C-alpha cells in the first residue's frame, strides 16, 4: 500500500539577501537547524528547499507535524556564510497555492 506523505510548506524570509539555491548556503542552514532540533527530528522532518521566491524569501517543504520544530529552529540560526542573518517565518500551509499571495516580491 502506497502511503501519501503529507507535507507542510513554509514561506520564510531572511533579513538580508540570501541565495539558498547555492548548495553551500543551504547546507549551512540545514546544519544549523539539525543542530537545534537534533539529527533524528531533522531526519523525520524531510526538510527540502523548494524555491527562491525573491532575494530574501524562500519556500521550504517539511513533513506534516515537523513544521513547528522547523519554525522554532529558524529563530536560532543566526549565521550563514560567516555573516549575521535572521530568518522570519511568514506562513505555513498545506499547499503552495495558499502561500502565493504572500510570495509576491515586496
Amino acid at each position, binding site marked *: 500500500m502506497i502511503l501519501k506523505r503529507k507535507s507542510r510548506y513554509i514561506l520564510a524570509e531572511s*533579513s538580508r539577501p540570501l541565495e539558498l539555491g547555492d548548495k553551500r548556503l543551504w547546507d549551512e542552514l540545514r546544519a544549523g537547524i539539525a543542530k537545534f532540533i537534533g539529527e533524528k527530528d531533522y531526519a523525520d522532518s524531510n526538510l527540502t528547499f523548494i524555491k527562491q521566491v525573491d532575494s530574501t524569501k524562500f519556500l521550504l517543504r517539511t513533513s506534516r507535524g515537523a513544521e513547528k520544530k522547523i*519554525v522554532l529552529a529558524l*529563530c*536560532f540560526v543566526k549565521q550563514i556564510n560567516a555573516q549575521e542573518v*535572521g530568518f*522570519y*517565518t*511568514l506562513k505555513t500551509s498545506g499547499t503552495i497555492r495558499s502561500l502565493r499571495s504572500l510570495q509576491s516580491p515586496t
Partner: protein
Amino acid sequence: MHYFDITNSPTAFGKDLGKRLGFRKLLNISDDVELVESLSSQPKKPFLIVSQNPNVVYNLIKSRWAIGLLVNGDEPDQKVLNKIKENGKLLVLNSYYLTIGERDRVSKVQKLKKIFRNAHKGKTKATIISLAPNANYLLSFMQLLEIAKMITTDEHQAKVMLGSLGESINDIEEKE
C-alpha cells in the same frame, strides 16, 4: 486580538514589516516605549521597568504608563510578582536573551520556564517580546509563539501570553 512586539533598534522598523511578521505594530524602545531604571525619570509614555531594586519597582509599577517589569534570567522576588499582579501589570520576558548566543541556551530556557512557572502560580500575567536590536534578531508572530510554547509548555498559555501585551497597550492608550 491584536499582537504587538517591542524592539530595541536604533531606528524603528517599517509598518509593512510588522504586518508581514503578523503584528499590528512593532513598538520601538525610545520611539514608542521607554526603559526605566530609576525613580528619577518619569516618562509620559509607556515604559518597561528594568530595575532589580524592589523599591524602584514598587513605586514605578503603580504608574498608569507602566507596561511591566522586564526580566532576563534574574528571578524576581515573590513580593515583586505580587505587586505586579496587584497593579494589573505584566512580567515581560524577552526572546533576545535566548537567541543572542548558543552558549548555555538550555539553562537559559530552564530559567525562563522557572520564572514563568512562579508567575503563573501567583496568577501574575506574563508576556514575551523579541527586544531585537536589529533586523537579524526580529521574530515573526509564529516564531514568538513557538518560543512562548517552549517556555510555557502549553499552547493556550502561550497564546494568552502573546495577547496580554496587546491588552496592556490598549489599556494604556484608553486611559490617555
